[in-house]
């Protein structure tokens, strides 16, 4: 087989941020009909490289050259990059939630009638056509808000496809998708590859990368470390090692069988209303219990109401009916305040939306849930506050200049550690983790897993939601599978596997 034509090549790109080097002489090539994975820990320089390719950083801001089809390109803005045939799909979907699907797909390029008005008919037709290319059965007149995250993802891709790109850059595209949806999505990428679109694929999920990508390049600390090809076979251990630069033999820590059989929390007949569809219930009738020190996994497809269920337990969402028993006694939880008093903590799915307070330092973000305990008279005891913040800063190995650093300047993994610290400081009995490792680098993931095991050993129970099944399977003692608003299956550690969990979740 002859070598494929190179359609994009990057030569000796160096990008500096005020003295620090984010990318150091990185060179790479993208060939025709190829899916290339770019992997690396957070802060390795992946996003910076992609921002250069998509024109967010103009050609004046970095050194080195970019060639598209052997032609030197100097992008001044994202528009130039688009015109060169590069389309980017961002990790955070940038859709206008209250516009329709068609409006979103054609945003910025509405077709016009002769009189200069928007040609709605043509617009809907164009949107429909491009969605058909994706085999997506989505009503073009629906508002994007009413779609599931995976459908929203498709709308984003449709929007990018409309510009007829030759190169598609995807940043963590599957982070909001469930296992099944991911499979469909990957088939789609294969098809697009056949249609002549090359992809650059950024992901933390190695198994996906191995299945999907023809070639993998690894970035670390702004440098290209090595390159692997599919035809030579992938070795996950050596790839992980080149990503983190140190040996990491066991990703998941050993879990020991728990002896303690005391029940900590029991919920009975929970019914939770749907957040967007009025009058419907997303959780219809769910009951389960957690033992002391147990790690319970809550599995289910996206949209099965996992997050809604835990939010209702925590008092963040109202429930239609249901009882909660904490340590055998019935408890009333009407708001998060009540839940915290009972010793429950909630790490939410979306750090940026409702995890951290962007305007605050690491220290102030950490102590947010224990302000009452830090009171000395009417004031906050700032000495005690600093002490405890420093203690957890060291304990959780937060990588930052100090506790006064603004939280927004940290990487996702370190932000997550800060929010975890917030809950660890409380009188914690049950920690609810909603997608705790989403968008987090491998190194920090391992640290979080280790922390979970330590917590469970010290008698703290954990209720964990994760869309990454291998992670859930490795970490939990027991599994509850949600589907159609009820518990579809309850599995012990020994009997659960990806197949029977997926079967139960998608029970049709």
């Amino acid at each position, binding site marked *: 087989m002859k070598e494929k034509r190179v359609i994009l090549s990057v030569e000796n790109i160096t990008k500096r941020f*005020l003295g*620090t080097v984010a990318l150091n002489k990185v060179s790479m090539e993208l060939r025709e009909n190829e899916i290339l994975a770019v992997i690396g820990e957070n802060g390795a320089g992946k996003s910076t490289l992609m921002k250069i390719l998509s024109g967010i950083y103009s050609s004046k801001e970095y050194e080195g050259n970019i060639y598209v089809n052997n032609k030197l390109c100097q992008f001044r803005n994202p528009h130039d990059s688009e015109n060169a045939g590069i389309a980017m799909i961002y990790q955070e979907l940038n859709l206008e939630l209250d516009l329709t699907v068609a409006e979103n797909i054609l945003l910025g390029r509405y077709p016009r009638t002769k009189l200069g008005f928007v040609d709605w008919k043509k617009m809907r037709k164009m949107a429909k056509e491009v969605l058909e290319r994706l085999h997506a059965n989505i009503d073009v007149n629906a508002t994007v808000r009413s779609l599931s995250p995976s459908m929203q993802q498709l709308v984003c891709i449709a929007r990018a496809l409309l510009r007829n790109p030759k190169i598609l850059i995807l940043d963590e595209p599957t982070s909001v998708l469930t296992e099944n949806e991911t499979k469909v999505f990957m088939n789609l990428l294969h098809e697009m590859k056949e249609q002549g679109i090359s992809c650059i694929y950024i992901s933390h999920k190695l198994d996906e990368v191995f299945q999907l990508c023809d070639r993998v390049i690894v970035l670390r600390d702004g440098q290209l470390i090595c390159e692997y090809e599919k035809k030579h076979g992938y070795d996950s251990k050596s790839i992980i090692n080149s990503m983190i630069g140190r040996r990491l033999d066991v990703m998941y820590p050993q879990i020991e069988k728990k002896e303690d059989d005391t029940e900590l929390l029991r919920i009975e007949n929970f019914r939770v209303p749907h957040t967007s569809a009025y009058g419907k219930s997303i959780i219809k009738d769910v009951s389960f219990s957690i033992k002391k020190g147990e790690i319970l996994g809550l599995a289910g497809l996206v949209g099965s109401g996992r997050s809604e269920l835990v939010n209702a337990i925590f008092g963040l969402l109202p429930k239609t009916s249901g009882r909660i028993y904490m340590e055998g006694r019935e408890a009333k939880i009407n708001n998060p305040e009540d839940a915290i008093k009972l010793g429950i903590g909630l790490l939410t799915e979306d750090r940026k939306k409702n995890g951290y307070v962007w305007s605050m330092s690491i220290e102030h973000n950490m102590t947010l*849930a224990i302000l009452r305990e830090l009171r000395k008279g009417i004031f906050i005891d700032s000495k005690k506050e600093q002490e405890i913040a420093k203690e957890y800063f060291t304990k959780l190995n937060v990588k930052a200049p100090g506790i006064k650093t*603004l939280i927004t300047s940290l990487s996702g993994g370190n932000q997550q550690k800060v929010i975890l610290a917030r809950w660890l400081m409380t009188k914690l009995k049950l920690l609810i983790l909603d997608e705790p490792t989403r968008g987090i680098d491998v190194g920090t993931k391992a640290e979080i897993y280790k922390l979970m095991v330590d917590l469970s050993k010290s008698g703290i129970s954990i209720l964990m939601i994760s869309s990454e099944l291998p992670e859930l399977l490795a970490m939990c003692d027991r599994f509850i599978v949600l589907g159609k608003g009820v518990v579809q299956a309850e599995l012990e550690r020994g009997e659960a596997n990806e197949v029977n969990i997926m079967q139960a979740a998608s029970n049709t």
Partner: protein
Amino acid sequence: MLDIKRDNKKGSIKKFLKWFFIRQESSIIIVLVLYSLIVTLVNPVFISTANVINILRSTGFTLIMVVGMTFVLITAGLDLSVGAVFALGAIICGLSMQAGIPIILSILLGMLSGLVIGIFIGTVIVKTGIPPLIVTLGMMYVCRGLVSIITKGVPVYPLPEQFMLIEQTKIFNSLPVIILISVAIAVIGHIILSKTVFGRSVYAIGGNEEAAKISGINITKVKMAVYIMTSTLAAISGILMSSRLGSAEPAAGTGIELKVIAGSIIGGISTFGGMGTILGASLGALFMEVMTNSLTLMKVSVYWQNLVFGVILIASVLLDQYKRRLIIRQSVKAKD
């Protein structure tokens, strides 16, 4: 040896400048000092004791309201009704005194009217989720309406001599008591905002309301409190103004809400919530008064004043944005 010393000195100056520039109040301090310098060069009367006291005295009335407004703005809220409550408080207090109610009790009644308005505003905002802009705009009209209905447009005067003595008393024969009262309120406000659980909750709600709620902060309570505080302070300011004038004017405080908000923003309070300090906002209030005073001193036509205010407001927000970007860039550097 000498060289090293010089280097050290240079380093510490640089360090100080960096520390100073990153502080939220730095922009307003730079602007205030530079501006005062220019005005003094044009007309030295500006810096005379009498004029400075005059400026501080006028600032006092806005400052009292700015303290409340700072809390509201930091929670990402807004209160447009302060000007109307300013008038209402004075009218209620004045009428009570005319009805023969003791002065102290009348003042308390005036404050109570502000408190009641604050409870109403807070309740509507918290319970219905109607944006603060709309609720307080509505309340502005309601309060102005109440004032008109009660007074039929006629000022309430004369007011008792003793009442007028409150604002007109001078300490050390020169310092009007309003300066002391307003500074005391600002200091208390500063302490509450920066040192108490309540203050921290205010910042947290402005920074990320959902995260604050999940962390167990009682959003309802805190939001209610900031609106009650602001309305009560507005009433207090209005009562003091009527003591200064010897009359409670139905049209008092018209447009002052915008001055209060503009002053706070010039002083570095983020309009998106979560950021700002009482010190910055106080300096912003001072700056507004300095502007009015100096333009008159420099014989700039009154017609120009509004235009200048507008330009300064926009410029100060621009400066603030630039600064914030710089801070973020520095923290990005720390990350890599």
